[in-house]
């Protein structure tokens, strides 16, 4: 008899347990997936925490370096202004010198002599006038700055290895302006038969000079302009001229020091040169003594006893 199997051969032949058994050597797609995920995670980590950060910094650094190079080239290609700076500093220093020697508000002795003659009261006569001067050399602010700039430039060269170490030679010459103080000494005599009157005359001249006004002569001047604002009394001594009693006296006035237009704090005030005026006597420095004498003279004017002139 012919037997016909109508069931499919594979389905019928496969045992149920055999279908579920996996070969020991077979690699599951899940394993591949895990490997891929791991590789991706490691790659992602590297990208996020290493490559991306580093490359961003490299790009930024390169950009900044490029900007620096461009700026440096611009600076290098710019025309040198060192000469311009130097010219300004020298010019300003020289102008300081010119201004100190020829300032518009300096004391003009022609005007002072004129004012002085107007302020002298009756019976007071001048015997002698002297003007002497003291000059201090003060370095101009621009000269100081010029030397500082030069020193900084030299230090920069040494740092860059282009200069020599140690104190560099060839520093720019210092420019000094003269700080001139002049001193006027007035020697005179006051004549009166009366001692108190002689003292009063001396004080009257003092007051006239201080105020710039001679009331009896109806004269008003700006005599004290340019002076320090003080008139120091010198010696007051009795004397007789042609048999007439007189009081000899002297006053001492100092001008304000000349200086540049814009006075900067002097960096190196080298009071090198104290030139005393030629023809006059040595200046009397005793301000305190002079003030004491002034008090004595004022006191005498009020009736205190002073040595008799005769």
């Amino acid at each position, binding site marked *: 008899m012919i037997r016909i199997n109508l069931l499919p051969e594979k389905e019928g032949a496969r045992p149920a347990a055999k279908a579920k058994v996996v070969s020991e050597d077979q690699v599951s797609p899940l394993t591949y997936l895990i490997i891929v995920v791991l590789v991706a995670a490691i790659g992602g980590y590297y990208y996020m925490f290493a490559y991306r950060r580093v490359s961003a910094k490299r790009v930024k650094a390169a950009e900044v370096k490029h*900007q*620096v190079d461009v*700026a440096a080239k611009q600076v290098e290609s*710019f*025309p040198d202004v060192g000469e311009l700076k130097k010219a300004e500093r020298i010019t300003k220093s020289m102008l300081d010198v010119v201004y100190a020697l020829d300032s518009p508000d300096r004391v*003009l002795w022609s005007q002072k002599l004129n004012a002085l003659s107007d302020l002298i009261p009756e019976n007071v006569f001048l*015997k002698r*006038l002297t*003007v002497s001067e003291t000059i201090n050399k003060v370095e101009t602010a621009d000269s100081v700055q010029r030397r500082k700039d030069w020193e900084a430039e030299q230090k920069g060269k040494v740092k860059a290895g282009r200069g020599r170490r140690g104190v560099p030679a060839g520093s720019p010459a210092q420019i000094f302006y003269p700080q001139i103080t002049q001193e006027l000494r007035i020697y005179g005599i006051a004549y009166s038969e009366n001692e108190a009157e002689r003292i009063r005359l001396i004080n009257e001249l003092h007051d006239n000079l201080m105020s710039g006004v001679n009331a009896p002569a109806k004269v008003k001047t700006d005599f004290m302009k340019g002076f320090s604002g003080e008139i120091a009394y010198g010696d007051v001594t009795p004397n007789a001229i042609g048999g007439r009693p007189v009081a000899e006296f002297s006053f001492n006035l100092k001008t304000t020091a000349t200086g540049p237009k814009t006075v900067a704090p002097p960096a190196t005030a080298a009071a090198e040169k104290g030139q005393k005026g*030629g023809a006059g006597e040595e200046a009397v420095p005793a301000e305190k003594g002079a003030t004491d004498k002034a008090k004595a003279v004022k006191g005498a004017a009020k009736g205190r006893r002073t040595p008799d002139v005769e």
Partner: protein
Amino acid sequence: MLSKADKKILQAVLVGAAVIIIGLVYYTMAFVNAEITGKDADIKANDALLKKHQDELTELKAWAGRSNEINAIINELLQKVQRLPRSVEASDFFRILRDCVHRTNLSEIKVAKLKSINMGAYEEIPYMITCRARYHDLGQFLTLVEQNAQQIMRVKTLDLFSDLKRPSRHRVSLQVATFVFTEPLPKPRGREAATP
């Protein structure tokens, strides 16, 4: 489920991954961070340098822009210097001084050149004048000296004293000085010299 091969592979992969991760962390800590710190320092230094260059450039531009102003200062100086002698010999000064003396009523005049005084960038040239003069004639002479339009002159010292024998004509001695720059004077610069 997972086969033995899977397990082996995964074990190996996990160990490898762990090693790689540890290596990566170490690499990040040791090299990446160091490089980033180095780059940060470079950027900072270059930023400072850039700022310095930019400041320098700004300053240079400012100086170039001040060319005219500086020229004006130089011209002011040159204008003033026109009233000064050109050399220490100062022949013009003597001529001007002599004119002042002759234009006033001074008598018994003696004019003597004194030794020049070196003051660094300039030299002072003093003259000693001795004469007899009335008080107001002396004032006139001093006006001519002190307010002279041609020459900067100043009265350094003055000694005026009365002579009892000739009360109206006083004996006078005074020093009058001018000065001359010994340093070379700056010259005005052309615009092109400072314009980029």
